[in-house]
């Protein structure tokens, strides 16, 4: 769709028929797939494919916090590790954690900490490790989406799931879920957000680029509207684990309401 005029390259980010570079509509998400419980030895785990992004998240804990000087006697601490695999980008990435990874780990960990009932587990640590296997813009929101599903899979008490969404602007158009080509636009604005969908709280918001107030308000509306779709996929993936599993397809048996007591 990119038109070449002379030596200058101008890109049409949204064409006349309302289609984007990769054929999506302006407010269309990439294809998202969420899987739960992919790492058997972890307390909780999840795998998310978000367009080309591939993210693997694992959760260990709450467990004893070592080294002990990091422990907080009033609540659990969240140790979130965001790492990009060396092969996750076109050129090899130095596997040493860089400035960017350390910063993303910090803000994402704080976003999750808001959702978890940390005060129930004093002196412990919850380790969340997220590995980016393949990337094409929007990995931190995909990582948070996977991490919160993994936390739920670990049975850690949370206020709400954390759902990530990217909104922004490219070529003067407001877009949802920007990919790499759109993020590299000269006027690009990228706003990764993490939201607690049921409580309507924003737990992560970063922005670079310039926007008018009107664009900003519109983009927020888009984010809250489309994060619901991400949330539904997370919910569906978690429920699928218990829907028919081990039921040999016999839903009737499970549905028979002869209720069995749970000894407490």
């Amino acid at each position: 769709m990119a038109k070449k005029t002379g030596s200058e390259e101008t890109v049409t980010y949204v064409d006349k028929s309302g289609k984007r570079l990769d054929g999506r509509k302006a407010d269309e998400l990439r294809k998202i797939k969420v899987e739960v419980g992919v790492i058997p030895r972890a307390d909780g785990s999840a795998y998310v494919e978000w367009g080309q992004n591939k993210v693997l998240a694992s959760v260990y804990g709450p467990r004893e916090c070592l080294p002990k000087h990091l422990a907080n006697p009033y609540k659990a601490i969240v140790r979130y590790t965001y790492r990009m695999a060396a092969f996750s980008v076109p050129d090899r990435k130095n596997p040493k954690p860089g400035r960017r990874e350390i910063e993303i780990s910090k803000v994402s960990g704080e976003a999750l900490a808001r959702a978890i009932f940390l005060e129930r587990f004093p002196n412990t640590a919850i380790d969340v490790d997220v590995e980016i296997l393949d990337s094409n813009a929007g990995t931190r929101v995909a990582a948070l989406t996977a991490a919160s599903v993994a936390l739920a899979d670990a049975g850690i008490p949370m206020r709400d799931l954390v759902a990530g969404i990217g909104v922004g602007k490219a070529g003067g158009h407001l877009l949802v879920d920007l990919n790499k080509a759109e993020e590299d636009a000269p006027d690009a604005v990228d706003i990764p957000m993490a939201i607690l969908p049921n409580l309507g709280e924003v737990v992560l918001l970063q922005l670079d680029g310039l926007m008018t107030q009107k664009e900003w308000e519109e983009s927020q509306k888009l984010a809250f509207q489309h994060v619901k779709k991400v949330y539904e996929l997370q919910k569906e993936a978690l429920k699928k684990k218990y829907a028919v599993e081990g039921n040999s397809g016999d839903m009737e048996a499970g549905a028979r309401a002869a209720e069995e007591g749970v000894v407490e």
Partner: protein
Amino acid sequence: MIGLNENNAKIVVVPGEVVTEERKKLGQHVYLHQGRIYSDCLGMARIDGDSASVVPLEGKYVAQAGDLVVGVLISEKFAGYTTDVNHFYPAFVSKKELPENLKPGTIVSAKVAHVNEMNELELEQSRVFYGGDLISVSPVKIPRVIGRNGSMLEVLKRGTGCSMLVGRNGRIWLKGSNVGLAIKAVEIIEREAHLDNLTDRVTSFLREEGRKAEAAKYA
């Protein structure tokens, strides 16, 4: 009763999902926000008369006073042993109650005497278990292994002829001639803990296996 949806199936809820909008007493694994009751974990919604709660499907063991736990000795101290009880921290078992000097790796059971506000345990009434096997299951599924008033445990013991000790911390000690069958049965319970008529299914599984073993004997 467990909450049922329009298809009469149990309602699985995720963290942050509304359990009920009515005014109810708060049970376990729910919290109140702006007048609505939300779940705080992945589990099954449960509305019992005037109280709402969620039965968790995942989660770590959080000790309560009075729990029976099965632990493995890690190391010896002056007056006792540090013991792994599948909790946040290792617990201490006093030598006073134990008959002799024990090696690391020995299986012991104990009652939780007290849990402090830091989730640290105090154990009492410890006993040693010689031989046998130790298996782990998810601690949230232990109530189903025991069953209502111990009914499931009774089925397991009778069907396999094993002696069993079920710890609240998700550890099960087994000893007997047919441990393999008992482990298979426990695996079924763990896999299908959220489904109905579990006791019936385990009973029929054990009966079927027993019949097979009987047939193999005469073949």
